[in-house]
């Protein structure tokens, strides 16, 4: 257990220090959201309506952007070899790395949501709803995106290919995330149903993600 805690601590520490990716993700999130009014016009009513969708898309892209390096950095400096040789099962180590990544890069997105909600003219309830759905849904993005990050190591290639492979897999999260926030804001549906499904998606990804990533890493080392 100390081994896993050490791994999580290390990854968070690296992400928060100079050169780490955590703050870049938030900055990217902010930039995407700020760009939206330039694309759709500064109509506040329209922005309110699109708000949850914009925030969710921004979070999706931001988490994908930072995931690229999840395993690649460890692969490049040889740490991944030693992680594979460690006594922590690789699946667990993968889950630990994903958790650390979410704490360092996913959670700040949730925290930044209220500020961005202001820019999009979302009221308190709507902002809270979006933040809550992001809190429940971004782990699913991290844990499914992790599969792509592991594939990127196998392929020695990340970036666009990763996006092409991972984005279709995150469609369900996007659907239920936006639906739950909109249900909370406007109705007529209850917030509970899509929100529980969103949580279920996150739980499923906790299982599938680490196993698929570990399988990919194990087969892909060279």
């Amino acid at each position: 257990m100390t081994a896993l805690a050490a791994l999580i601590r290390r990854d968070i520490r690296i992400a928060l220090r100079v050169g780490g990716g955590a703050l870049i993700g938030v900055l990217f999130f902010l930039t995407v959201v700020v760009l939206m009014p330039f694309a759709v016009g500064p109509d506040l009513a329209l922005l309110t309506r699109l708000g949850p969708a914009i925030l969710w898309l921004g979070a999706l892209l931001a988490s994908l952007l930072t995931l690229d390096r999840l395993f690649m950095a460890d692969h490049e400096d040889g740490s991944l070899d030693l992680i594979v040789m460690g006594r922590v099962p690789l699946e667990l180590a993968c889950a630990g790395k994903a958790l650390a990544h979410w704490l360092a890069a996913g959670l700040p997105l949730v925290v930044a949501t209220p500020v961005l909600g202001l820019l999009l003219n979302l009221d308190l309830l709507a902002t809270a709803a979006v933040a809550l759905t992001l809190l429940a849904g971004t782990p699913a993005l991290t844990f499914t995106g992790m599969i792509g990050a592991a594939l990127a190591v196998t392929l020695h290639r990340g970036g666009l290919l990763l996006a092409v492979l991972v984005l279709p897999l995150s469609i369900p999260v996007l659907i239920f995330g936006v639906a739950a926030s909109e249900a909370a804001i406007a109705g007529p549906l209850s917030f509970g149903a899509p929100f529980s499904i969103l949580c279920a998606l996150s739980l499923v990804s906790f299982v599938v993600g680490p196993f698929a990533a570990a399988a990919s890493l194990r087969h892909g080392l060279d």
Partner: protein
Amino acid sequence: MRLLASSLTCVRGGREVFSGLSFELAAGQLLAVTGRNGSGKTSLLRLIAGLLPQAAGSLALEGGDAELTLGEQAHYLGHRDALKPALSVLENLTFWRDFLGGEAFDAPESLAAVGLTHAAHLPAAYLSAGQRRRLSLARLLTVRRPVWLLDEPTNALDTSGQDMVAGLMREHLARGGLIVAATHAPLGLAARELRIGGAP
């Protein structure tokens, strides 16, 4: 404790790197793996570490911990030093000590053994190539594992560093450890030699 390898075959990218490689190594012995560039020295070490699949053959550590795989009882010192430039020297070392698990020793003491005490709180980014190598070596001291797999351990080290490596290896062998080292240069220790380089 004995490391037994029989008719190991390694295939990478559809190409056979080596085949039918057998050796036996007892506790306290050093196996120096030599051969041309590209003959598969690194591949052999990675194969023993469990980082590459064996296409054929068998590997076993007799008298080792039956609960653990061979890779989990081995240290691998590769070309890449597994250091994070953003972390300090001590943080790098304590991380690997905590992560690798098993019988662990005081990290500052290990740093002293490789002559890096003065740099303990500097970011690893400031280290020279030789110092990075020393820090990687400290990892082998701070967690005890019976098998050492060293890929060109004296790379980037000056004469005093090479002497230090020889000293560390001698101590490890004296404790009953096993070392498999891929090398070009003589290590300055009594060693059995395994020459790879049949197949191109």
